[in-house]
């Protein structure tokens, strides 16, 4: 292990360094920007994100560690970092119009979005318990504030409280598990943990540690039965933040979970496989069934995102290269379709109209045919109907399950995705087949238009020609440390 930092570290950490500098610039620029020119802050934030993406891409070919082995610089991390930057960019694009309606100051908002992004990047790259924990908290604390950002709004307040209380609670559980892992292995470096624990997989304390870590992370990805915060938080948070939360936070937590399990705890694969098998089945089923009964679209999408967490967990259960690839593919696709769906919802927010009830979508087609078309694409994609990207994602996940021999998991998965179509299609029914609501027309700002166009185009293009994404995900998944070890333990 290298004993000190080198100049090389500065190069390897360039994405994080650029982002950190950028978020400070945004914070300072906010102080010197008049109220009339605040929309420039949005574009400045986009600029920071683009500047961050450049070194990420440049470094994506590496397979090394930085900062004395605290952070991995590999394809896996780069894939997720790009995903976060993308999700953050879409969030910023759909936020401006929303914030204007809410009359909220955008400066700190953009700063916090960038902070959360930084936390996510550390979560995806960390290969040390402490680093992962710090990344997680950087993200979580930013989100607590963002969720409650609309201070006069009581729903936003309540959402923040619920998210904060349950987030801190889950952190306690996760940390207790981590402390046991450290105690049993004597190190916080994941790759050394794996070596140290390889011989003591039947220790009771270790099993407890695995359960606690799994439970703590299950809170973060909103898997049943640790999901109860999600619907309330998703409903109460500002819509763009809900989008970012459901995509960025979930993807980052999955990345961290993969690092923890595959790099740190491969010896415990039989235990966590069983745990996540149960969580996956419960999440898919409960999420979908609960979503059917919702009249609020944000709540419905919250339950649907619980179900999606269940689908994605299939990848963890298999723990094969194909399974991990499938998770990467799915999370990327999910980012586009889920962000897109919330982008359309954010459009419906007008003064005096919250715009997130199912009936607010009535006749959207007649007012905004393009927005209705976009929403149709996102709903079909979330439901997994070709030729949209969602189908290709599910295809990978279920094929990974079958390859690994989890046929019943795949059966439950496909039946659930058939059920889910019921409520996705209901949204389409309201938009396309109900009478128009008496209300003012919503004009998408250029930012929203760009974001929705990108999301729709990506959802369709990946659905028709997924080969580039598949290859990228496959190459990225290969770089994840101990994946072959787990495979051999099957």
């Amino acid at each position, binding site marked *: 292990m290298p004993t000190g930092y080198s100049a090389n570290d500065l190069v390897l950490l360039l994405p994080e360094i650029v982002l950190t500098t950028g978020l400070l610039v945004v914070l300072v620029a906010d102080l010197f920007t008049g109220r009339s020119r605040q929309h420039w802050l949005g574009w400045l934030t986009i600029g920071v994100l683009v500047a961050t993406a450049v070194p990420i891409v440049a470094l994506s070919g590496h397979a090394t560690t930085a900062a004395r082995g605290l952070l991995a610089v590999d394809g896996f991390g780069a894939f997720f970092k790009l995903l976060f930057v993308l999700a953050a960019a879409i969030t910023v694009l759909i936020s401006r119009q929303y914030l204007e309606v809410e009359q909220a100051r955008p400066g700190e908002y953009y700063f916090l979005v960038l902070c959360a992004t930084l936390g996510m990047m550390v979560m995806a790259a960390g290969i040390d318990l402490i680093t992962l924990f710090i990344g997680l908290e950087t993200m979580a604390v930013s989100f607590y504030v963002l969720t409650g950002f609309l201070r006069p709004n009581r729903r936003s307040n309540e959402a923040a409280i619920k998210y904060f209380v349950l987030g801190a609670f889950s952190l306690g559980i996760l940390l207790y598990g981590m402390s046991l892992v450290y105690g049993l292995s004597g190190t916080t470096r994941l790759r050394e943990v794996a070596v140290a624990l390889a011989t003591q997989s039947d220790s009771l304390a270790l099993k407890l540690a695995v359960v606690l870590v799994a439970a703590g992370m299950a809170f973060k990805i909103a898997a049943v039965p640790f999901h109860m915060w999600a619907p309330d938080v998703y409903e109460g948070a500002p819509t763009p933040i809900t989008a970012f939360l459901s995509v960025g936070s979930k993807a980052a937590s999955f990345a961290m979970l993969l690092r923890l399990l595959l790099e740190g705890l491969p010896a415990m694969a039989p235990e966590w496989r069983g745990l996540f098998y149960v969580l996956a089945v419960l999440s898919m089923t409960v999420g979908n069934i609960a979503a059917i009964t919702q009249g609020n679209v944000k709540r419905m999408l919250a339950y649907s995102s619980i179900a999606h967490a269940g689908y994605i967990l299939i990848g963890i259960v298999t723990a094969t290269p194909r399974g991990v690839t499938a998770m990467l593919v799915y999370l990327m696709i999910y980012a586009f379709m889920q962000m897109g769906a919330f982008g359309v919802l954010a459009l419906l927010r007008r003064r005096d109209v919250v715009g997130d009830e199912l009936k607010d979508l009535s006749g959207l087609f007649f007012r905004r045919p393009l927005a209705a078309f976009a929403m149709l694409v996102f709903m079909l994609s979330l439901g997994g*109907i070709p030729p949209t990207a969602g189908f290709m994602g599910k295809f990978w996940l279920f094929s990974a399950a079958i390859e690994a021999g989890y046929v019943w998991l795949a059966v439950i998965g496909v039946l659930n995705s058939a059920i889910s179509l019921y409520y996705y299609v209901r949204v389409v029914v309201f938009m*396309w087949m109900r009478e128009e609501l008496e209300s003012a027309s919503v004009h998408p700002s250029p930012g929203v238009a760009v974001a929705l166009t990108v999301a729709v185009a990506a959802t369709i293009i990946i659905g028709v020609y997924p080969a580039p994404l598949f290859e990228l995900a496959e190459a990225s998944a290969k770089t994840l440390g101990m994946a072959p070890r787990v495979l051999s333990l099957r």
Partner: protein
Amino acid sequence: MNNAAHFPLLSLILFTPLAGAILLLFVNKRSENAIRWIANIFAAAGFLASLPLWFWYDTKSPAWQFVEKLPWIPSIGAQYFLGVDGFSVLLILLTTMMGVIAVLSSWTAITTRVKEYYVFLLVLQTGMIGAFVSLDFLLFFLFWEVMLVPMYFLIGIWGSDRRLYSAIKFFLYTLAGSVVMLLGILAIYFSYHTMTGVWTFDVTEFQRFNLDRNLQWWVFLAFFLGFAIKVPMFPFHTWLPDAHTDAPTAGSVILAAVLLKMGTYGFIRFSLPILPDASREFVPMIAVLSIIGIVYGALVAMAQRDWKRLVAYSSVSHMALVMLGMFALNPAGLKGSIIQQLNHGISTGALFLIVGIVYERRHTRMISEYTGLSSVMPVYAAVFMFMMLSSIGLPGLNGFVGEFLILQGVFVVSKAWAAVAATGIVLGAAYMLWLYQRTMFGTVENPKNEKLPDLNLREVATFVPLMIMALWIGLYPKPFLDFLDTSVGAVVARVSPQYSGQAVTKQADCPENVAVNKFVLAGCETPAAAPAAPPPPGNVQPAPGSTPPPATPLKTTGGQ
């Protein structure tokens, strides 16, 4: 494999309707007549583009024709792989012809949201053609699912009464079946990889591949769910009457004429040749369900008071007969089954058009609302008479040929089944004649019916091609049967080898890239590649014909 057209003909057929749909997106939604013209022109262009298939298809060659092959998702071995045999050529021609008719028949029937209507209709057309031309299983599945959405909208927006309920019922039913089918596809995919080390969704490879018997059984069930719901077979038929009743006329026509064929196409293209052992084992179950379907469909049809529902239940009965003929698993039964699929498309499609015409004029489908129409609408009554006779299988018209072949095939297998099936056909004649008698004969009792206008020129134009086809198949079915020789022969060679002497068998193409000896390639045992250890006798497919030709490189247009 070859491509006689030397240019991507199948892609042209496939994407012409889609191009029309995309063009329509850019037309102002208020210029409705322009939209109608564009839709009609593109539907007609699609039909014209498909005509070369009829002339250029080589009925003697057992190979897949008009093949196009391009890499699509190389990392999982999925390809953009199109190709046809005689069976799919006929279904494609049926699809493009019915597409023209459906688009033409909507000219005055659809007055709201015209633009979206035609967009969905054309997208649906692409989906259906895509399913018939795909030889890559994943590509097939993609098109198979693509069909759902436009059909859902057609029923849900332009349907009648309980359209939302019917639309979602149709959607979820078929979806549930197809997602299970996807698992079956994946099972074959992984099993094939385990045996050969090759990742592929190539259907032509799967058709030569002998899957483990136990796995075949499960995969057959998975496919069965997907296809049987689509056919629909009893007891999965309950979505059909609702969907048909509430769909707009063109939707019903497409649904009956083409969408239902997806199920039977799936059985013949995939279940039988890929899962021959399981197919044989499931014959009794399918025969029983089919027989129940034939009789039940006919009896329920007889009890209907709704004209369209009656035709819908007649579909259940007819499609059950198609299934019975297919699972006789002999050349006569299969050929009859395929011919009957065409017949059902023609006759039932026409019957739905016939209901649609009075529905457009009177906005009711109740049989009791109509009496004595023959005196007000003589041309209409004549057309109806013609199509009804075609549907009940009068000799000289198309229905007779198909039913005769099916009964011939079934009779060989079981005389009892044939007897019940024949009863079903008689019942079919009964409800159709009764319907005709109730609506066309007698005096006009309802004053609203007194001034009903007869068919106009456009409406006649929608029926003329159907009547010509009905007569053609009825009087001179030979060209159609010739088309089926090789494709039926290939299926029969796989699923019941004892018949394979009776038909020219499709010669399997021998792939160069497959590790030989792991499984048996029918017709591929050239002396050079002869396995050192002979395969177990149970696996040997009788090599049909004399000496198989050596493997030839693919001639494709797409390049590779």
